[in-house]
């Protein structure tokens, strides 16, 4: 199937529509909440939690014996939350650092989950097949009820976000100050962590345990480059996330044997790459251009200083001098001379230059006052 064909079929084909809508909503909610994770320097929490959710899925299946997505996700949510709070407990109560705590919960929970999954597979119960789809996720298994669930959660999340906007924002940037203002920081903290865990759990079915962290991080990291404003960043991250979802689904649907999760992650990665390179404020390219510009400005000023030093020794500041004497001088190029002329700091007459009154004053400002 060609890409264009995919977009044509999007509106008529029920399955395609459901999956696309699902991944779009997922991308949006992940981008939204991922912004908080990134700004709170909890970027890898998503990785740990998505792994920690696995035993919850297995235990939920062991208890209920059904493969009802909602029940499994509930189990995932519970074990994800246990993992989160254990990480926090380790960091506050022991001298283990956050990276060790994250790695421990990630690998130990996941290993336990694997033990349970292989245990379940040996059970004489035909129902168990397909539990391992949570490892890599399968967007194709999304049905309308899943999408509705995602939409509801996203809606609730939006409402909470708007209700507690002020609190979230202030907690992000100055936790101690928030405390002194009398806000219940613990509650706000738990609330935001809960929603991050919830978003991760929702994504398990679509992109799977292993790649979930990228879903959370990449749109937020991309959005961060374009703005310094929290609200703009969240909106941008949601848009990037949604687009990653849609394009990722489109690309994987139009090719054979392409799992959706990794493609979505790579599309999100492209957004990050573009943002890193081309964002006007922080992007690598513009930063480099600014470095060059500053260097040129500096050289321009060096030329001006040199001219000023010469002009100082003459009674008439506009006494013409040969251009040749600038040749040995590093800051001098034809372009810089021209720029100086455009600024009306020097007047060029044939092979001679002379400092103007304005140029002299500028040089006085630059080089004498501060000495």
């Amino acid at each position, binding site marked *: 199937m060609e890409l264009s064909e995919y977009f044509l079929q999007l509106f008529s084909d029920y399955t395609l529509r459901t999956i696309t809508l699902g991944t779009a909503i997922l991308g949006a909610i992940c981008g939204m909440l991922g912004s908080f994770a990134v700004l709170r320097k909890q970027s890898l929490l998503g990785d740990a939690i998505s792994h920690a959710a696995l035993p919850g899925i297995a235990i939920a299946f062991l208890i209920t014996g059904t493969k009802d997505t909602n029940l499994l996700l509930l189990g995932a949510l519970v074990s994800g939350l246990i993992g989160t709070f254990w990480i926090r407990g380790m960091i506050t109560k022991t001298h283990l650092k956050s990276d060790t705590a994250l790695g421990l919960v990630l690998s130990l929970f996941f290993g336990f989950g694997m033990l349970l999954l292989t245990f379940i597979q040996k059970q004489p119960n035909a129902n168990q097949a397909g539990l391992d789809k949570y490892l890599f996720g399968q967007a194709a298994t999304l049905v309308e009820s899943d999408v509705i669930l995602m939409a509801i959660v996203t809606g609730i999340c939006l409402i909470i976000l708007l209700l507690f906007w002020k609190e979230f924002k202030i907690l992000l940037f100055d936790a101690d100050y928030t405390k002194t203002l009398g806000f219940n920081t613990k509650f706000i903290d738990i609330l935001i962590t809960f929603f991050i865990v919830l978003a991760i759990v929702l994504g398990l079915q679509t992109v799977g345990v292993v790649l979930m*962290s990228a879903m959370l991080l990449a749109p937020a990291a991309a959005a961060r480059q374009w703005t310094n404003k929290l609200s703009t960043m969240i909106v941008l991250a949601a848009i990037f996330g949604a687009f990653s979802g849609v394009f990722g689904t489109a690309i994987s649907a139009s090719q054979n044997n392409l799992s959706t999760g990794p493609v979505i992650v790579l599309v999100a990665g492209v957004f990050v790459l573009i943002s*890193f390179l081309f964002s006007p404020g922080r992007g690598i390219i513009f930063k480099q251009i600014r470095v060059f510009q500053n260097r040129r400005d500096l050289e321009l000023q060096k030329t001006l200083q040199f001219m000023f030093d010469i002009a100082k020794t003459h009674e008439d500041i506009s006494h013409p001098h040969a251009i040749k004497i600038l040749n040995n001088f590093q800051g001098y190029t034809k372009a810089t001379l021209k720029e100086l002329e455009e600024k009306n700091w020097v007047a060029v007459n044939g092979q001679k230059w002379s400092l103007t009154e304005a140029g002299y004053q500028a040089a006085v400002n630059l080089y004498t006052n501060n000495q």
Partner: protein
Amino acid sequence: MNAQVEIQLIAAVVAIACAIPGVFLVLRKMALLSDAISHSILPGIVIGFFITEDLNSPLLIILAAVTGVITVMLVEAIQKTGLVKEDTAIGLVFPALFSIGVILIAKNANDVHLDVDAVLLGELAFAPFDRLIIDGVDMGPKSLWLMGGILSITLGLLLAFFKELKVSTFDAGLSAALGFSPVVLHYGLMTVSSVTVVGAFEAVGAVLVVALMIAPAATAYLLTSNLKKMLVLSIVFGVFSAIGGYWMAHLLDASIAGSMTTVLGFVFLMVYLFAPNKGLIAVVYRQKQQRTEVSLLTFLIHLNNHKEENERHVKHLNEHINWQKVRSKTVLELAEKNNLIQIDNQIVKLTTKGKEFTDLALEYIISNRDEKIEHMKDDFFLFRG
């Protein structure tokens, strides 16, 4: 040797090989890099496998190790741009590389026998079937030779560079000043970690390699702060979990790697809860004790400062120092039991001992000199630092 013994032997060797670099990763706060490496080596493995069609080929290990080092370099390069923090950089790099690996496998799934599940989870039970045969003589399982080789190299490097590793782990600046480059040691450690991860992933899978690296080291770290002891302890925990895990898997008929991790998790949980000084229970008990003692001290100083009776009434103290009822009662009882105060008719009074104690404590608070409270250290957590 029968297969059972061989599996346990391989498991133990893998555990030791992982535990050693793991200790340094945990101490250097780079534990999560092992997670990143274990995922991002996937494209290296896949490409190597496409070329050689053999999961045990040395080329595969070299390619994967190179990918591991590339991961570390990419993370550092992204971090250096200052656009995102280190953890975000890690979180961006490894899923992208892993995705590339998964897509490579998926696109060539028809003609290649390589399963993502196998890479991610491994299967120790199959290891004895793949044997190294030289001139028709059976030399044992290939993966035992592979991991044994990696372990010997790791041990050799550890012994050769122990001092350098130790200094650069705890004081990178000193290490640079002494003339051994932290950068070389960093990349050396990363290379060893990558090679170990690659060697072990086949047996225990990419995610559980992380458990074998971090968990024994973290467990040992809760018990000691001596580097040598920490290394020995992590090896002991690793081996114990490897063999215990094997038998648990045998019993439950479940994944060996999963069981090993579960035993590791259990051991960690026990140490986390019950470790003598750094365990959760010890810490919580100590914190509670310190809180009571701070309250006691505040209380005594308050008594010392107020001669008027209404300030020293039992009821009044509650509201005055603003403690909850229960806590003020505990403090009162503690003080009375230690003969620091006397309660006459609901009026609290410092005893001579209490006065002496308060003066000493005050002097300590003012001068902050340890010798003032030397003899009090035995009785009070608060002063034990």
